[in-house]
């Protein structure tokens, strides 16, 4: 994830954020005819809220959180959106561990609400979004910090034995244990460092694709 | 002592309840009364009218065969199929009307919401069981019949507890 654009610029001028995240040339052409969902254009970047409303009216507190992360990690992270009570940060897979540690130790986020995996076949990537929240810090009780990171996607996945891997955050946030197991079986993202990468919800003899990938088709749909 | 008091209070509460009224709806003999004639939808205001979401009722003279109910159902239960009807209606050139398979229907009522012509209602009839799967498929002619329902039991609350009358 080499995003060279200014964080501030990204925030205020969302149209610039497009080129930063995914490969721009591919995007218009990604929609393959057989794909029901065309390539995910932009997963997280929320252009709408910022531009439609007045630009300086970004919520100050949330922006402060975002600034702190940018300040610490600089180019390694990108702000995908800042909305009331919600901050979205994009991190490369190598830095996700450090950013999460920073979020826990300095920003006081103490648990993970949910871990969502999103498949982007056009980008050949799978995004894993951690929704961080806090019980202990009363100022953060409304806040959700979305940490998004991306793993490489393989066409013929062998869950656990291919390049679709991410570092596990379990040693930082204990609460991700079952969520990461779920993401592993539903999308095939192997979490390195997770102590218990077993099946959770799917049957033991499931041999098909991980079901939440976009190329896994529901019957009759 | 606290333990003994607690045990005595529990026993006392149990014995007291022997004198309360029974709160059981004895179903085949008593049937619960519902609000209104069933769930309906007013397309002009875009708001439904409260009522039980039971089996549907189709007004043949309103149905235009537009298939909107069928399309709505496709995303939910795939229970509605459009079939040919023998009669001719001037608003229904294609002579197709919905046929509902109650083996699949989930009674969400989104087909009623989808109907722009006030042709599909839901009624208070919920006793749809049948000995065969075919018996659960209601043709347009069957759907046009208004069901006879006798439902009169209501929850009554008195000093001696609530009961179904």
């Amino acid at each position, binding site marked *: 994830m080499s995003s060279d654009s200014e964080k501030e610029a990204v925030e205020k001028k969302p149209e610039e954020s497009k080129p930063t995240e995914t490969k721009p040339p591919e995007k218009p052409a990604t929609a393959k005819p057989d794909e029901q969902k065309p390539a995910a254009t932009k997963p997280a970047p929320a252009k709408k809220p910022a531009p439609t409303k007045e630009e300086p009216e970004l919520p100050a507190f949330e922006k402060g959180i975002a600034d702190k992360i940018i300040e610490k990690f600089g180019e390694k992270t990108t702000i995908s959106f800042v909305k009331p009570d919600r901050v979205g940060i994009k991190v490369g897979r190598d830095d996700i561990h450090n950013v999460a540690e920073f979020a826990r130790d300095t920003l006081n986020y103490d648990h993970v609400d949910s871990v969502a995996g999103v498949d982007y076949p056009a980008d050949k990537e799978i995004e894993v979004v951690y929704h961080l929240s806090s019980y202990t810090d009363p100022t953060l009780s409304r806040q959700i910090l979305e940490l998004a990171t991306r793993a490489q996607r393989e066409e013929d996945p062998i869950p656990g034995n291919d390049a679709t891997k991410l570092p596990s955050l379990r040693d930082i946030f204990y609460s991700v244990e079952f969520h990461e197991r779920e993401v592993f079986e539903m999308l095939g993202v192997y979490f390195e460092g997770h102590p218990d990468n077993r099946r959770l919800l799917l049957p033991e003899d499931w041999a098909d694709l991980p079901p939440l990938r976009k190329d896994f088709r529901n019957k009759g749909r | 002592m606290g333990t003994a008091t607690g045990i005595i209070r529990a*026993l006392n509460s*149990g014995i007291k*309840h022997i004198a309360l009224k*029974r709160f059981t709806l004895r179903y085949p003999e008593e049937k619960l009364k519902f609000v209104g004639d069933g769930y309906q939808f007013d397309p002009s205001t875009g708001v439904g009218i409260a009522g039980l979401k039971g089996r549907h009722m189709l007004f043949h003279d309103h149905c235009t065969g537009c298939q909107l109910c069928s399309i709505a159902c496709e995303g939910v239960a795939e229970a509605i199929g459009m079939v040919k009807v023998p009669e001719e209606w001037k608003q229904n050139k294609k002579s197709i009307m919905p046929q509902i398979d109650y083996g699949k229907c989930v009674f969400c009522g989104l087909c009623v919401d989808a109907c722009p012509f006030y042709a599909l209602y839901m009624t208070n009839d919920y006793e749809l069981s049948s000995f065969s799967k075919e018996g659960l498929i209601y043709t347009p002619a069957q759907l046009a019949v208004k069901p006879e329902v006798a439902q009169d039991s209501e929850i009554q609350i008195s000093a001696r507890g609530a009961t179904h009358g």
Partner: protein
Amino acid sequence: MSVIAPNFKLSEFIKSILDNVFWFLLIFTLIGIPAVMFILFYIEMPVIDGELLTPFLALTWLADPSRSIPILKAFMATDLFRIAAFPGFGFAALLAAGTIFVERKMLAKLQLRVGPFYCGKVEGILQLMGDGLKLISKEIIIPAKADKPLFWAAPVLFVATAAAFVALIPVAPGWVVADLDVGLLAVFAVIGFFPIITILSAWSANSKFPFIGGIRALYQMVSFEIPLILSLLGVVILTGTLNLSEITASQSSFPWIIFLPIGAIVFFITMLAELERIPFDLPEAESEIVAGWLTEFSGMMYGLVQLGTYLKLYSFAALFVVLFLGGWNGPMIWPPFPEEIITEGIELGPVTAQFPGLPVFSQEMLNGTIWFVLKTVGVIFFILLPRGVFPRIRVDMLLDLGWKKLIGLAFVNIFIALGLLYAGILGPGGIL
């Protein structure tokens, strides 16, 4: 239609019943009746009403009802009648069946439900019969690796042990199946059998959940047997006898519960535990160990265990009545018999019916039975009530309760009895 589940056909069901009835009748008529005649021919028959009972006479009651009366009277004087009918099995089974019905209806009332309602028109009074029919027509499944003889024997042994318990209970003066001098010790001996049967059946099923249930039954017995035994020692000290009939007779003026309330409470709690009723139903704790030691029982085997359980419930309630509530003692409420009924019989339309039981049943006995039944039903009500209001307890709580609290209370009860005795209030020289 499901592939696996067999189709139930009423015609086949009825046919199977009719087949069995047919074969039974055939075998009975061809073998049974000749055998009976054969045996009767070689037996010295007793003299009844100055008339020697011959095999012919013994079978004429089929044709002539008036002849059946002396035979019935003779029969009622036998032990067989006591065992099978009145103070024994039939009476207890009747009360047990009534208990099941009352339990279901009372619990339903407590829980604001209706309970059995449709079977038998009147508030589901025939529900038990329906359940019995259902159970008897269900397939008996025995686990493949089970120890079959033990597994088959367990339900029957359970009922039989409960019946042996019933045999020790005096219902009315002189009406007891086995009037033992050490009746109370015999009761303890019989009670000791139940956990053994439980463990044997649990072990024989070769399944984990029954096994744990059996072990729990063992612990339950272990922790409650001693308080049970000790809580009754107070009564024995005050009466100086172990004979249950004598204990009952000693309470003609007042029941022991007045002097030994602590013993009564301890005995009641241990009784609940021995019965595996709700606060202590650990061996059958369904949310922890599916159905405990009953998990592998199916069909009539389960039904027999239930029958045994309720027989046991009746026996324990009756034991409580006998030991603490004065048994059959009570004011005379049964109307006295007119002399002519006993001697001449009752004019009922064209025939004069001589009531068969009356020379056997005396007024005292009927009165005693009424009081006994009333008290027993009262105790049964209080045995059933905790099921509605208490949750189940845990094994360690159970052991704690049994070994620390109840044993202590039982000793307190013994000292109360000793104190009453030595203070001269009761016992020889006291007001007794």
